[in-house]
């Protein structure tokens, strides 16, 4: 009798203690965390960026300029081209409707041509689809795919994933032909985690009802921020009367502006400071 009780108690202890010892998973956190904890900084060695624009056609000009703005900022802040994957439909600069052929602007003052030189687009035109995106994240490519199209990350990489386009409740529309669902995205990140393809991910998404896209994430070490809640639209910032359309979205505009202003002391910037710059009055939606 006594022996059985002792054995049971030991079994219970073995069950309870490990459950307390396992690390709590930080899934989609809506509260901003502080900057990287000191214990992680020794593991993080390289940065990557995946910038995806999921729209095509002339009236979605602002999505292309969103991504190209991010591309320029990310390059300026130090990530090299070899570690940036850009997916664009790329049908704006040479569109016959463009009064500035060969140029793409994200501001109506036209001071900055985002499509000048040294723009490396890795996935162009109809290659921007859900299959290629998932393959990119999970690393499962056909052997013939070139190195420049692969996300060659390891467990010490921090990745910025930025997506923009038209979206809705738990989906993102890819080029009027298909959709990426939040479940598929969460599963892709889970594969990345199990294959040790990232250290931390910052997932930013600028679409209508963007916050629903990261609702299903269940992998650790991902911070996600979307530009609007369920039922809210994300608005464009301003339109250009020369081109005849909107050239940038508000969420992206304020994000890029934040980074432009913080260039001098970029090493001491935290995500919390970025999150504090978003407010409903400027954006017209709740960025969380």
């Amino acid at each position, binding site marked *: 009798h006594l022996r059985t009780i002792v054995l049971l108690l030991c079994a219970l202890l073995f069950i309870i203690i490990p459950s307390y010892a396992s690390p709590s998973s930080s899934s989609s956190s809506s509260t901003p965390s502080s900057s990287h904890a000191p214990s992680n900084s020794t593991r993080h060695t390289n940065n990557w960026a995946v910038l995806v624009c999921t729209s095509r056609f002339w*009236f979605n000009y602002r999505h292309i300029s969103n991504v190209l703005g991010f591309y320029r900022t990310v390059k300026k802040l130090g990530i090299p081209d070899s570690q940036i994957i850009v997916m664009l439909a790329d049908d704006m600069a040479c569109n016959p*409707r463009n009064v500035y052929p060969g140029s793409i602007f994200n501001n109506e003052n036209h001071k900055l041509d985002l499509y000048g030189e040294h723009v490396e687009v890795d996935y162009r035109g109809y290659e921007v689809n859900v299959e290629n995106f998932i393959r990119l994240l999970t690393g499962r490519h056909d052997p013939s795919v070139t190195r420049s199209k692969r996300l060659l990350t390891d467990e010490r990489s921090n990745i910025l994933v930025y997506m923009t386009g038209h979206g809705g409740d738990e989906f993102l529309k890819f080029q009027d032909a298909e959709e990426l669902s939040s479940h598929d995205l969460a599963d892709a990140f889970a594969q990345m985690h199990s294959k040790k393809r990232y250290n931390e991910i910052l997932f930013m998404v600028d679409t209508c009802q963007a916050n629903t896209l990261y609702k299903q994430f269940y992998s650790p070490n991902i911070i996600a921020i979307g530009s609007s809640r369920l039922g809210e639209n994300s608005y464009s910032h301003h339109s250009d*009367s*020369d081109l005849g*359309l909107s050239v940038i979205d508000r969420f992206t505009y304020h994000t890029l502006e934040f980074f432009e202003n913080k260039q001098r002391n970029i090493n001491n910037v935290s995500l919390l400071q970025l999150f504090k710059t978003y407010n409903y009055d400027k954006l017209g939606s709740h960025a969380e």
Partner: protein
Amino acid sequence: MSAPLPLYQRRKQLRVLSVVLFLVGLFSLTQFPQHAHRTYVSENALMPGSARVDYSSKDLEAAARTTHDFIQFQKTIKHLSGDLPSWSRSCAEWIVSRLQDLNCDLDPRIFSYNVSLAGRQETRYQVYAVLKAPKADGTESIALTTRWHWHHKEAANGVSGLGLLVSILGHLRTSRWMAKDIIVLISDTDQGVRSWLDKYHAPHTYASSDDDVFPRAGSIQAAINFDLPATSTFDQITLSLEGYNGQLPNLDLTNTIVRVARVEGLNTDHKMSLIAHPAPYPFLSSPYLPDELTTPMMTTLFTFMINQAKGVPTGPHGAFNTYHIDAVTVGVSPGTSYNSVMIGRVAVGTLRSLNNLLERLHQSFYFYVLCSPTHYLSIGEYMIPFGLLVAPLLVEFLCLVFVFADTQVTRPRDIAEAHMLKREGKTVTQGEHSMRQLPALLSVVCGLLFLALGLALYVLPLFARRLLSGVGVLVMEATLFPVGYIPFGYEIEFFLIYVILGAIAVRFLGSVTRALLGNLPIDPSSFKLGIMIPVAVFIPCMSLLNFSFCTMAAAIVAPVYSFLGPSYNHKQRLMQALALLIVSPPALLMAISYFGNTNVPALMDAILDQHLLYRSLAYPFLTLVYIPLHLAACRLISLSPYEHSPTKKDK
């Protein structure tokens, strides 16, 4: 006689119900403006008004200069006014030279076509040119059309359609946003657009010489026609939408023009109209009508519906409907509210917006009714009053079908037996039911015989037209219609002809009926069923195509013809005869010609012409459906109601 069927008892209640529904339908027509929705742009790619328009007073000066020069040129060739083809050709050549001065790449061409006016065939000339977009791939285009007139009123700095298009071409020469080619067509008649379009879309053989070259620009996505008097200021912009047989362009085209005008500073609520200037139907604003029916929205709605019912396009843009190209006509009414530069800016702004399209307009409505350029009702809503108006007709039709089904116990054996018994000379003593099968079925067929009459009426004038031409027509007119100098002479003569020919036709069909039925009595309900089949099929089906015409037809046909039938007393018969007189085809044609300020022969001619040109519904309805219906109804009310009893013999 057997006990009356339950349906007869309920029939009176059903009739009351259908009268109530009809009146509600009429009333709801007047409620359209209150329930109309504001229009919205469905196609996201259009983005009307978001691009700045650079068309300026400099371009307007060029337009005014072209207009002035053209009017001066027309004065110099006044001596050709007797010979219209030469005049046409000289004007076309002048326009070609002007376009060539503008831009050497334009390659303007003269397109000659044949038009039959006043019975004669003539050759006329028109000019067209294609402005190619330098960066585009030339597979799509937008068409701009206009007409030149023979006598322009000279106005200082006036801008006509010709001047406007030439200035737009000059302005677009330096624009960098063109993704589609621009086709410019400058014609001298409305038929010119139709001939040009037919040639454009016809499969063609290769050109045998340089003169045969017909530059094309891919598929035309949309077309805008300008109908401008030579003014330098204007009061309102007018939009005309109705095309062949009341077909309408996609509502997004109208929405784009309205929004671009709004961005340019036009007060679209008051300074934009759907009624062309001068107002085509002055009786709509007559002081005898109650106030609620003469508000601007009601007047616009009625004008819209009458235009659609007529089936005649309200501008040369109607020709584009045949090829599924959305087209409108933009005009102005004279006044001093705005400078004509705004028309140029609206035109270029609309072009820029249409330029953004990736495919043809397809998001917005094709079937709608407009109370103003910014208020619409879609087919889902306007069909409800129509359904109410048709209710008497359909309720009666269904009642007759039930009655027919009740009597029709289809057993060929019974029919054969009845025949055998008759041949043997025995009286038929079987029950009422089996005796009613045969006459019921045959009565339906007798009713349908009138449809054959309708077919003959439809086909014969077409043949006669082809056979008679020129002198033949004159001779016919001289012999048949010599009474123009008597007041109402045409009308009386037409009425008499109708009565005489109608009686002959009914007599003829009556003898055919007797041959079919033999000694069997004619069954009035089944006869009525037979004559109502064409109209009950025509009106609902055609309403999908031309809603306004079928609404008006239903408003006339439904209340009268639903409640006709053989009656018991003479007073009822007299009232029915009177009702039939009021809605008889001659009376209707007389009423229409009175409101249209024309006479009956001209009206009949016009109806036939319009059907041949535009597939409008007035002619088929009149010949195939209405005249047979009316004649058959006259026959119907002359039947005695006791004739369905098998014990009484047919007279």
